[in-house]
């Protein structure tokens, strides 16, 4: 069993039983690989998860908190084999995650991403509208997440058009020009969720453009929109009302597991691809939550070879909605994100001045 076996069959096609079987073999192998090649991973496993290595199911796999990549250098390769270092977006003052890739892992990531995206967009490169600014590549602070997102998806489009100018102001002429040119045709739209809302859904047009054949892919989280009382259902509804836009795909991914993308389909739930999975954990004792019970989201991916990021506990809270029975025939687990665990606010004695 190799990860390529899971990449090369159509995504979202394996039912959970098949997938569990295949993933268990791969993940056991990855675990052993990281134990052998990352002292840090081995220490974490021994001291936090005990020495048990007899996995009966994927649920027995140790999980590392995503923040560990901020505080520690975690890799399973020699420094000489580092091909690329990915960093997470962090607002000023926050530490950033550093993810070390070798050529193999980088290749797997890009193959995996391509398999998932082409599953949704199709094999042809479509005219691509980017709800962002080209300047995002120049701005070192905001580059990492947004820039990487765009760069990752750009190969799936052509005639790339950015709707924000260099100063991150909406350029209506550009937006209208693009929509006019491709009105009613198959196009690919990409942007961060909040920006899609702000600069596409809320843009003023003289006429109604027809985006019924367009495919919108968006990501980046709901926090800013939830503050404005916009949830996924509203988001989808408003875009449908305004543009007849129906092919909307939110996705969930993180720099710590690039390529391993959980994709939304028409039902509005996120789906695990063949080579990745999700487990919802009870925050009290990390036991596994059944369908319908919210908890912290653990993400599992067969891609990370150069760094021990194959099993991560996120700080996101989600709920499993079902397994193998999604509308549209996508197999495996599907889930929903409810929010993010708050930063713990614990008051201490060192707590008087300047606050």
């Amino acid at each position, binding site marked *: 069993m190799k990860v390529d076996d899971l990449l090369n069959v159509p995504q979202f096609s394996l039912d959970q039983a098949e997938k569990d079987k295949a993933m268990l073999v791969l993940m056991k192998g990855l675990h052993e690989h990281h134990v052998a090649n990352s002292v840090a991973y081995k220490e974490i496993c021994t001291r936090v998860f005990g020495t048990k290595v007899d996995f009966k199911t994927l649920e027995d796999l140790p999980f590392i908190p995503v923040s560990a990549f901020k505080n520690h250098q975690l890799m399973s390769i020699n420094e000489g084999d580092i091909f690329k270092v990915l960093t997470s977006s962090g607002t000023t003052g926050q530490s950033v995650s550093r993810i070390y890739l070798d050529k193999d892992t980088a290749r797997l990531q890009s193959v995996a991403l391509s398999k998932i995206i082409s599953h949704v967009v199709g094999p042809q490169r479509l005219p691509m509208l980017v709800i962002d600014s080209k300047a995002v590549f120049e701005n070192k602070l905001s580059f990492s997440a947004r820039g990487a997102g765009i760069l990752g998806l750009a190969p799936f489009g052509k005639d790339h058009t950015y709707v924000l100018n260099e100063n991150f102001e909406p350029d209506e002429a550009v937006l209208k020009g693009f929509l006019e040119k491709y009105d009613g045709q198959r196009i690919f739209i990409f942007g961060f969720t909040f920006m899609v809302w702000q600069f596409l859904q809320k843009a003023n047009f003289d006429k109604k453009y027809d985006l019924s054949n367009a495919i919108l892919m968006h990501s980046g989280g709901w926090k800013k929109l939830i503050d404005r009382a916009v949830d996924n259902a509203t988001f989808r509804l408003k875009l449908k009302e305004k543009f007849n836009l129906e092919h909307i795909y939110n996705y969930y991914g993180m720099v710590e597991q690039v390529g391993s993308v959980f994709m939304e389909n028409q039902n509005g739930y996120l789906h695990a691809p063949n080579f990745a999975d999700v487990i919802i954990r009870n925050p009290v004792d990390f036991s596994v939550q059944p369908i319908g019970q919210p908890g912290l989201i653990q993400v599992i991916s067969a891609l990370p070879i150069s760094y021990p990021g194959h099993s991560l506990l996120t700080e996101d809270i989600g709920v499993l909605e079902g397994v193998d029975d999604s509308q549209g025939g996508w197999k495996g687990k599907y889930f929903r994100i409810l929010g993010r665990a*708050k930063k713990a606010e614990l008051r201490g*004695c*060192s707590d*008087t001045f300047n606050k």
Partner: protein
Amino acid sequence: MNALKLNQYTPHSVSILCTELSCLVAKNYDLRPFDSRTIDFLDGLSKLILGDKAINRRPEMAALGFWLRKAQLKKMMVEQEQLLNNPQFKVAPIGKVFHICPANVDTMFMYSMVVALLMGNRNILRISKRMDAPHVLSLFDKLNLLLEAEEFTLFKDYINIISYDHNADISNYLSTGANARLIWGGDSTIKTFQSFEKAPRTKDIVFADRISMMILDSEKILSCEGKAWDELLRNFYNDAYTFDQMGCSSPQTIYFLGLHQYCEQARIKLSKGLQEFLLAEYENDVSSLASLKLNRMVDDALEGKILNQSGNNLFKLLQLVEISDSNSLHGCGGGYFYFKDCNKIKDMVALNVPKVQTVSYFGLSHDDKNELMKLAYGEGIDRIVKVGNALNFHYIWDGYNLFQELSRKVYIE
């Protein structure tokens, strides 16, 4: 001049220049140490607190109310006999005391003030703007109400409760005007305030970052049943969880005393009992606690501090490696306890470091306590108290007798 404006809550609510504070303007010192008028004033406050149903159900408010009763104050006076009636000297106030109060303990500013007031000092208390909980605001109201009574108006020149945003000019002014500063709030606050100007004779009484420990006799844990057991769980909870385990006096490390197999069983029993108790009682966002603790466990594992972990995300136990430095043993809070098994108190030499403040205990014999006291004859351990009393204020704090510290001894021939 606006730069010197601050908010005053007591004696009445007003925006005021720091140069106008009544404690700084007033000249005469009318109150003697443990003046009967001060005792009446505080007893009056006690009655107002204990009589207010809206706040007296809060344990910290009730504790404050009881602590302020006349009988309790008289008891403290008797305990200060050596200080108050000493043939070698007379005792006098130190003068104007500037209190920099902690934000985490809602009632701490009151204890700080009362000790100083009992010695006849004037008090300027800087409190955090975040202390805006209804029960805290209600304390200001009660003080202000009492200060309006004719017999207590003189106390208006003795109590100024204020707040202001970080402002070096105000801090310089108040520090220079003060005869003593009580600096709560740990290392960083102390550092900040020591950078301000002060008079050469201004005395600083500082409360630095400290860590605290707990010693549990394993056999006593195992034999504890029924009501006593419930009480122990409640006491443990009060010590550790009241301030999310982040108070200086909240235990960070638990020493299980006894033979290894008893320690093991005691841990299992305690874990089970506390986990059930916490599920019902501890209100916190457990998802954030789970992330916080997992992150800390990874850090501790990679720093080689811990051998293993057990328990759940409400009560987490981390076994320490054999040799560990007590100075650095501060967990992430919210129920994250390092532990060690120990056969004898004597072996707990790690406790004998300046950083250790409180050692709370359960089930220790008289001999054990003597051994513990021997450990305190070193550089650390300022308090040895029963489990359940770790957070209780006492005028002996951090190695100081605050009545002593806040008074002058006048030599008269």
